[in-house]
């Protein structure tokens, strides 16, 4: 399924957009239906089923503002916990009725994943952002080598469903790693797909199971894969897995694309040394010191972010920290919640950062 163009809204909606603010419209409209908003894509949780020992599959029904997603892409889902909207990215599968299925694994210490796996109520409303990601298939008949570890299976599942709908035009091998057998998700579905489509082969690899644990990606031979050098490899999993896959396959495949998902950033961080800070709007990467405020560090490199008081009170320098950990210079607090506003003048970098600047 390809991304749908946003349809031109009907005239009542166009008029409403000119006449009222989203804040006003949404306040009253959501009294009647929690999904009725002027602009914001939202979705309601309609079901939750167990997907493996520590993962669940949630089905979300998006509202009319959801513009769709291509197989293999991701979406940022905003979940409100304790009054705070926390953003996490998932790779959903679009179901036949247009609903989105996301599979979430409970991560120890993961506030959002634990909430979604255990506590989220049916009917709960989450926010959605526009879909993003480059792991999409442009030529459906190109031979593929799909590599997934843990939750990295979710975009692969979406890709495979998409390919299956097109009759599996090319050869596809899926290598799917987990530690134990009961951590595999979609086993039934994947086996059924493989049974129905001779061009698809699925390999389940449990690395901590029984007497003969499966090889990890760096030791995997890929002997059974035909015409490896013609394959486009697509990998998804934790950063360590993706890097291992990249170096294992370097020079042996036609193309390598990957997406790594980040685990919760460490909160105990050094106060000395340097980090890399990536600025998304200017596309620059700078090396900044950990013992200096971000504002001072950026200014020393010739970047001039908007700012005011330089002491953490006026909020002029607030900008979104998309990922990484920062240290509040007045309170010493560490914060690593993705997609959060930080004040550059009273925050020092703790880890590598991505800032919306």
């Amino acid at each position, binding site marked *: 399924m390809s991304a749908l163009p946003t349809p031109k809204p009907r005239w009542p909606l166009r008029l409403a957009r000119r006449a009222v603010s989203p804040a006003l419209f949404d*306040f009253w409209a959501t009294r009647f239906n929690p999904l009725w908003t002027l602009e914001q894509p939202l979705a309601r949780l309609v079901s939750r089923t167990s997907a493996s020992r520590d993962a669940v599959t949630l089905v979300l029904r998006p509202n009319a503002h959801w513009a769709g997603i291509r197989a293999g892409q991701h979406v940022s889902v905003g979940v409100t916990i304790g*009054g705070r909207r926390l953003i996490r990215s998932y790779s959903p599968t679009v179901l036949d009725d247009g609903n989105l299925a996301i599979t979430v694994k409970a991560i120890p210490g993961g506030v959002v994943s634990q909430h979604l796996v255990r506590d989220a109520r049916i009917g709960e409303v989450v926010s959605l952002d526009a879909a993003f990601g480059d792991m999409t298939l442009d030529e459906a008949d190109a031979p593929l080598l799909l590599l997934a570890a843990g939750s990295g299976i979710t975009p692969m599942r979406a890709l495979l469903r998409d390919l299956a709908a097109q009759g599996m035009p090319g050869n596809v091998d899926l290598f799917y790693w987990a530690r134990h057998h009961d951590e595999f998700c979609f086993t039934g579905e994947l086996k059924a797909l493989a049974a129905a489509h001779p061009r698809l082969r699925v390999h389940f690899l449990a690395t901590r199971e029984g007497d003969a644990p499966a090889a990890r990606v760096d030791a995997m031979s890929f002997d059974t894969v035909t015409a490896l050098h013609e394959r486009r490899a697509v990998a998804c999993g934790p950063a360590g897995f993706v890097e291992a896959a990249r170096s294992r396959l370097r020079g042996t495949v036609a193309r390598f694309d990957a997406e790594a998902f980040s685990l919760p950033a460490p909160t105990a961080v050094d106060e000395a040394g340097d980090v890399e800070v990536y600025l998304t709007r200017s596309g620059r990467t700078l090396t900044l010191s950990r013992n200096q405020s971000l504002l001072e560090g950026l200014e020393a490199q010739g970047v001039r972010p908007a700012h005011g008081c330089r002491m953490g009170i006026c909020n002029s320098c*607030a900008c979104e920290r998309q990922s990484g950990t920062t240290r509040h210079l*007045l309170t010493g607090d560490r914060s690593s919640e993705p997609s959060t506003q930080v004040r550059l003048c009273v925050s020092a970098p703790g880890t590598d950062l991505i800032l919306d600047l």
Partner: protein
Amino acid sequence: MSHTRNRPLSAADLDAFGEELDAIRARVQADIGPRDARYIRRVVAGVRWTGVTGRALLFLGAFVHATLVPAWILGTLLLALSKILENMELGHNVMHGQYDWMNDPKLNGKTYEWDIVATGDNWRKTHNVQHHTYTNVRGMDDDIGYGLLRIFPEQRWRPFYLMQPLIAVVFALLFQWGVALQDLRIGRWLAGRMQPGELREAFRPVMRKVGKQVLKDYIVFPLLAGPFFLPVLLGNVVANGIRNLWTYTVIFCGHFTANAEIFPKEVVQNESRGHWYLRQLRGSSNLTGGKLMNVLTGNLSHQIEHHFYPDLPANRYAEIAVDVKRICVRYGQHYNTGSMPRQFGQVIWRILRHALPSRPRVLRTGEAIA
């Protein structure tokens, strides 16, 4: 003019004073959570419900003539209440970034737009940056008399100020327009220190906002009442007027009471964090009156706490005040608070007194840092 006895604080005292106040910030920051989110969402609901009820009553009065007077009065008051709540407890506080932690785009400090002719962007600059960083510093904090009034003897007297008792009343009635124009610095343009093109450029977003507000309050809603245009229009004018008078009163009580002080520009050079806190304390004054007063003033009844922690959720100020007061007592610093009639009486006295030539009585910079 100051009649208080503040203990002179050494540089070490000031550092300790600042650290204790920073510790309150850290403690509250760590505790921010669902309670604060619930509070601001209740305020949003309060703004919406009072607003819609007020407007509905104005229409009721217009169409059902038997109810005209009571419905008009109640409707106007509710609409005024809605605007007061929106401007003070919601808009002002949200624009400080107090609820940014919720990550709700509708409560984002840098993008929020409020129900008043002044633009949020101008306010973020004149108020959040200039006023809050350089509170009561002469020549840097434009809120000292808003370039229109002489509130402190340190301001140079000019014959123009003889008219200020009258000007102050007009300014109060039209306060939202004063706030809208504050950042345009028309005075500089009149004095020929600004190019007309520069002023036009600055005027554009203000005119857009003014147009929107005028269209909403004075054209669309009155027109919806058809032949009964006039009472609805009048209700909107009066509601905006009540909001103007109330916000003016609250804001003037915050920094212009008898014991509030102003400072020369030199203080901000190499100012320590402790001294910055002390300056906020000496330049601000609170209002007593309990929970209702707190809500109606957007918690500016805790002006001192607001100036210490402008970015902490305002619903926390009342509980923070207990500790702040205790710290001030321990450091021998006057904690300026009083009822609204008392504090505003002092403001009126200042406006009257300093319309005439006056001279500062004590040199206060030497007192601040011993």
